[in-house]
């Protein structure tokens, strides 16, 4: 948890000023892609099984360019199916987004998929 916050501070310090507004995501999970960094956390935390939840997502581009609204999805690779719901995205602050309406309807290993300007960033999540 603390490492995520530290990473976020380092990320903010090392990037251009416009790349990532301080998104107040703590705790957050971090995904480093080739072109982008995504931080995300669920609301509520821990995210519930078989109930709707949201994700707060902070995105920045490593080259400092402006960030488009990401696409967010989740699926179970072992089962080869996704969610039954399509989350809606709103930008709450510059570089900070909220995805509403996610629901993981089975226990097991899910994979969150964030698509930012054509780059696909993923993170697995196990839920019982």
């Amino acid at each position, binding site marked *: 948890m603390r490492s995520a916050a530290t990473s976020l501070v380092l990320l903010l310090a090392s990037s251009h000023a416009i790349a990532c507004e301080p998104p107040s995501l703590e705790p957050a999970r971090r995904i480093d892609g080739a072109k982008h960094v995504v931080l995300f956390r669920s609301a509520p935390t821990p995210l519930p099984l*078989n109930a709707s939840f949201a994700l707060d997502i902070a995105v920045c581009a490593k080259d400092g360019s402006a960030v488009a609204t990401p696409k967010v999805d989740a699926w179970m690779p072992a*089962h080869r199916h996704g969610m039954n*719901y399509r989350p809606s995205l709103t930008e709450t602050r510059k570089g900070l987004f909220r995805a509403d*309406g996610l629901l993981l309807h*089975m226990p097991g290993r899910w994979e969150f998929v964030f698509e930012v300007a054509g780059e696909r960033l993923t993170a697995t999540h196990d839920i*019982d």
Partner: protein
Amino acid sequence: MRWLAALLVLLAAAAPRAELLDFSADEIARIVRHGPWPPTVAADPSNRVSGKQDAIGLGRALFFDARLSPDKAFACVSCHDPDKAWSDGRATSMGRTALPRNAPSLLDVRQRRWFGWDGGHDNLWSMSLRPILDAREIGGSTAGIADLVRTDRNLSACYARAFGREPGAVEAEALAIDAAKALAAFQETLTSPRTPFDDFRDALARGDKAEAAKLPVAAQRGVRLFVGRGNCAFCHLGPAFTNGEFHSIGIPFFVAGGADGGRHSGIRTLRESRLTLLGSWNDDPVRADGIATRHVDPQHRNFGEFRVPSLRMAARSAPYMHNGSLATLADVVRHYARFDPERLHGDGEAILKPLGLDDAEIDDLVAFLESLSAEPPPTDRRACG
């Protein structure tokens, strides 16, 4: 005295020995997730009379009242018989014509996210109104519902107490929807009883091995299969033994004259309805419970998917599946043991595989499923007021 002692020894030898299988910590954790039962259930925010006794009484009276149908031939109870776990015991129901689907049990209906085999409704009050207005079923009308509530002295008084206004002052559609909300308030009280499985589960949770051992060993072997190799809890999860979502499990969906689109048509029904949680008839001004409706995502694989039913009281709600095509619990388990994967319509989903159970394992899973049923409490059929 000596003969008595000898008799006791003989009886003790003949009695089945209480035995607890060597469940692992992981298995116990998986079993414990199916409780406790009954859960605490909040009032429905979309229904302003949810949980209110006067409304429950009005809903109970309407549920058993055949005057909702123009020829007094059908009532809600016609297809949801309390002596059959609030189902009707038929493969597919018979209304004014043969209907294509099995009547689902109403037990624990408050806990559902979607209603009907196809989830065409996102709340219990709109679901309650549908069969009353369906010409194939009760065949009533909003005017007929309103007229009944306005003119029957007892129902009229019950309505006034439940809703705080005289039915004569309410226009017909609003009165019919209020009646449906009273019906919903009544159905929310239909909770399945605690079962032998619940005693077993609670005993495991508190580490009481002697109490847990009271569940027959065959049922214990069945629950081990259920949470383990069977992977049944992927869909039949939690205390209610369902995720409330929709899956294709290889049951044919062809019906006379075409196909039953299942969830595919359910989402269409939902989107065409004015009576959803996103609409103005939702009594919750925040519409907080509408989030699933707002985000439900129609997909090609929905065709032929049907809602995952609860397994509680399953032993008393035969036959099974959306079309009632499986007569017994053994038939259901045999289906999962040996079904043809080519019949799945999941667009490449890889959840279901034939379990390949032998006959003894099938018997064990049936024993477990039977442990999820118990004698229900007597049905309250009092008139309101």
